[in-house]
């Protein structure tokens, strides 16, 4: 079952994916000084991933990112958590951030960017996982792959609509 898929959508979604992610990268990098940041960049990227997923169909949705979205979210949480922990180890306040100006060309780097990347990964991972599960589940497919099902789901869980396809 391919649901929404059409050749036009499939062709344009790749283009839209790259355009959206250029914007997302811009939003992520400017977050320290101007409106933007990890959360909003994550949402932009997540919506592009969702578009790509719908274009490719619910069977391939969960694998659009090439890795388990749950794992991506976990790594993001670990990165963000590390920025809280590391300053404490050096005797500073939790989540304290530092900022350097690199040369005279207007470049600068803040450790807040690391935290933002963590947030970005969490948002992308969680959104993709949730939408992919719902997409699969509402097309009568199992929401989780067999291994995940053993790991994460309740023994009595069934797809939201239709019966379990084997």
């Amino acid at each position, binding site marked *: 079952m391919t649901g929404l898929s059409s050749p036009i959508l499939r062709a344009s979604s790749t283009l839209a994916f790259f355009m959206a992610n250029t914007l997302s990268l811009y939003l992520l990098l400017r977050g320290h000084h101007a409106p933007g940041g990890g959360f909003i960049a994550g949402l932009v990227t997540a919506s592009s991933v969702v578009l790509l997923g719908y274009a490719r169909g619910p069977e391939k949705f969960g694998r659009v990112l090439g890795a388990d979205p749950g*794992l991506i979210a*976990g790594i993001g*949480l*670990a990165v963000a*958590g590390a920025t*809280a*922990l590391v300053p*404490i180890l050096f005797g*500073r*306040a*939790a*989540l*304290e*951030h530092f900022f350097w100006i690199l040369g005279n060309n207007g470049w600068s780097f803040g450790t807040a960017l690391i935290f933002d990347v963590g947030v970005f990964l969490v948002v992308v991972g969680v959104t993709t996982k949730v939408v992919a599960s719902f997409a699969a589940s509402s097309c009568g497919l199992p929401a989780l792959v067999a291994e995940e099902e053993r*790991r*994460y*789901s*309740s*023994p*009595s869980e069934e797809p939201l609509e239709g019966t379990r396809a084997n």
Partner: protein
Amino acid sequence: MSPLPAMAVLLPLFSALVLFFWAKPSPLRSGFSVGFSVAQALLCWWLAMQTRHGEILACMAGNWSPPYGIALVVDPLSAVMMALASSVAATAVLFSHYEMPAARQHPLRMPLVHTMMMGANLAFATGDLFNLFVAFEITLVASYALMVIESDSWEIRHAVPYVAINLVGSALFLTAAGLVYSLFGTLNFADIIVRSGSLVGDPRMTFLVIILCLAFSIKAGVVPLHHWLPNSYPTLPPACAALFGGLLTKIGVYAILRCLGTVFPPAFPGVYEALGWLAAVTAVVGGLGAVSRDRIRDILSFHIIGQIGLMLLPAALMTRGGFTAAILILWHNMVVKSSLFLIGGVVLAIHGTDRLSKIGGLLRASPWLAGLFAIQAFSLAGLPPLSGFWGKLLALEAGITRYEYGWVAAGMIGGVLTLISMVKIWNSAFAAASVEPAPTTTDTRLWKMAATISILCVLTLGMTVLAGPMVKLSRVAAAGVMDRTGYAESVLELVGKDRLGGGMP
């Protein structure tokens, strides 16, 4: 600036992450989980030791000053709440380690329990209203997942009201937080204390206090907003039920104490009066519900509601003595309630059911368990000299001092109903002969589970033997919660007073 409050939040986050990545259950993983929950309990007890004379430990996240930064403030009430909550969690984790072989455990249970602990610690430590909301959400989202991961469709049906009503409560809380920001221009507790001085008598502030109390009452399970609780908790696995019963509703009570005692000035007699009468109804309804039920875990779930009423009754007096009693009952209840749920879990493991009409003869079959139950149940009911008695005595004293005889009567009725339902469990499950012969088992698992429960039992007995110091500690905690100036100053010292608008209250 002390990093300890932040560490108490970061430690469970770290262990939850490790357990999330380490997805395959094994004895080693369970050991890791137990080890980290014990480490976290030790850290929280260390915090409690540091604050036992009324000291306040505070730190600002990221060294930002309010209203942008988030303050973590640990006073004696928070510290002891954290210590007891993490002890209960450690026991529940150990219990679920013995409950079933590691290979059969659900891989998400441990990460979720640790996430829930992180949320609870943040809720107790935070000095910021929006952050309190976030902490509530972390705890609740973990609890939603815990409620459904090991359940069948019948149990999921009972989880739906739990999730739905708590979402309504969260929406209400979030709305209130937005309104607080629009009225005060800040969400930091210390900052609100400073700015609320000039707003006393403003109806907008009264409105805010009412909405916040309503939101916290939903989380605490106050009648008539209690319906989600007594049907959803019994569907949980015993270890999780112990954690929920010892923790979740208590965070709601803590938030009410913190809000009425510390954050807002004591200037809303109508709200306190209403809260007191709701608590009185809660105490009686919870007790009646408990007497009417037939399964151990159902009875205990209804008890939670009754006990919430008994905690809020003295708190609604808004006197130092009332808060002392409320805090003592709250602390005692966290330990006793979760150990009773765990005892229910052992009964369930022995008989395969905890329906009172089907079980019996446990006094003969496992006298050790009967002893544990007797101590905890009659301590909960408040029989002297067990630890539950002292909180009730203080509550009685506080109520009579303020001539609130209606509330005192409601509390007494609630207490008697608690005792009746406990005697009901004792008679049917322990003293009476079994309807069906209890399956004889030599399973060492049961012994280990009972031994785990005795950790909490030792805590209860410790509270009995050390009743004097416990009462003193709860007096210190009550004084700390009601000392608005001291709370504000300890945070403002950290950031420099010149960075805040307005003078001291």
